[in-house]
């Protein structure tokens, strides 16, 4: 039995080896609650999307390297990232929240500058390596788009998860996220962040009256 490293919401990650290199296998599990035809489509579609996108962004931002893709099994064999999820680091007193926010902002801006939308910018999809770099994982919901609206939706998701799960450090992380984002995106930053506000106001019962 392979050692299970993580059971995520949609995939099981196990330790494996790829021609002598330590690696992980990420397999998108069959979901019994979904009808087979929906399930098969989603699993193979997201696996393909993830593999393609990881390949495409590997020279732009820190992402795991891919070794092998098996679409029939919805499985990707890729680099084993040695580190801790941002989700778990933000709860520790000694972590540098400002720097974490800044690095994430910079990475997301680099993706957006290349019209790539991550689609799932939650803090459990960001791993801090031992050397302090942050590795972005899980591109299964990613897409390409030039629309500022789509970039805004991407940022709103990150903002939302900070508010819900990391409320105590929200200000420092998000303000520095914006700084990092601005260092790459420059002038269009304000426009995109004003769209984020608009998207929030579109939320149900968000309007103040």
């Amino acid at each position: 039995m392979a050692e299970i490293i993580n059971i995520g919401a949609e995939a099981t990650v196990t330790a494996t080896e790829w021609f002598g290199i330590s690696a992980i296998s990420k397999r998108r599990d069959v979901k019994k609650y979904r009808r087979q035809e929906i399930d098969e489509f989603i699993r193979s579609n997201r696996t393909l999307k993830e593999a393609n996108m990881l390949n495409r962004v590997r020279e732009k931002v820190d992402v795991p390297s891919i070794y092998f893709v098996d679409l029939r099994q919805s499985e990707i064999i890729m680099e084993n990232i040695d580190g801790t999820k941002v989700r778990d680091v933000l709860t520790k007193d000694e972590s540098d929240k400002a720097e974490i926010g800044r690095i994430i902002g910079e990475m997301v801006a680099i993706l957006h500058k290349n019209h790539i939308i991550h689609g799932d910018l939650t803090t459990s999809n960001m791993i801090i390596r031992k050397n302090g770099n942050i590795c972005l994982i899980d591109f299964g919901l990613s897409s390409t788009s030039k629309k500022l609206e789509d970039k805004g939706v991407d940022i709103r998701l990150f903002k939302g998860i900070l508010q819900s799960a990391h409320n105590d450090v929200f200000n420092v992380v998000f303000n520095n996220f914006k700084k990092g984002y601005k260092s790459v995106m420059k002038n269009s930053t304000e426009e995109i962040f004003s769209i984020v506000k608009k998207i929030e106001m579109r939320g149900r019962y968000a309007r103040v009256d």
Partner: protein
Amino acid sequence: MKTGQICIGLESTAHTFGASIVDADGNIFSDVKDIYKAPKGSGIHPREASRHHSNIANEVIQKALDEAKVKYTELDIVSYSAGPGIGPCLRVGATAARALSLKLNKPLVPVNHAIGHIELGCLLTGTTDPVNLLVSGGHTMILGFNSGKWRAFGETLDLTIGQLIDQIGRYAGYSSPAGATIEKLASESENYLRLPYSVKGNDVSFSGMLTSAKKMIDRGEKIEDVCFSLQETSYAMLAEVTERALSFLEKKEVIITGGVAASTRLKEMLEDMCNERDSKLSVIPRNYAGDCGAQIAWTGILAYNSGTKVSVDESWVKQSWRLDRVDVKWRK
């Protein structure tokens, strides 16, 4: 015997006018409601719904007291649904509550309707720290309690699941709420037609599905097949985002609350999901799933005992009042 505090809760956010008597131990002595029925093929008309509520309010409140065998003078707290909801409807409940509070000289407590759904669900199922899937005509949210508030970990970006179901129901000529009708029709089909499956991170979007499903009806697909496909797709999306929150928060309990919690198929799917994650699923009992006075009365007690009340002069209703803005002082 009623020994502790006794609270009356008035619910009037949308189509339901409800009154309920609950005590501080969580005993529900009565839960009476009367639902405004929109004509076939149309939705809630705010003026007509509020007219229905003001016509029926007296009778519903009296019945709630009679069934509970409680006299007006025995009430300790008066609570009302202060939002979110339809303005004219909210004002009927608030007006009745103000009158009771003034006449009896008892504290008046505004309650967030959505928090009411969650807290009543936790009370009735004995759930303590769940991921909450709140599904109704007004809400589609995945929530977890964290540092003083019920926080949204995912929600709909456009329509709620209840709106999706009701709008398809109306389009096909049935009256709202159409959940039970749609579920019955769906159970007569096994023929899946492909609909857009739209999960965006932790959020869902149903507007594309609504358009596609309407087009299917237009081009003459069997209504049973459309309903079946609609349920299979939309509920699978809800199961997925609930699983995402469960995994992110590393919790082991899920509770379904809100009117759509009455759906058998939704429960089945969530059960499959929870079983595979060694998590426990609870569903609010069917008779308390939809809007009711009990959710307001029980949350009214919790809120009052942690310091919430409002004077009649300063009492208010808010059509837009997000539940993740409410300080939940009674939970740790």
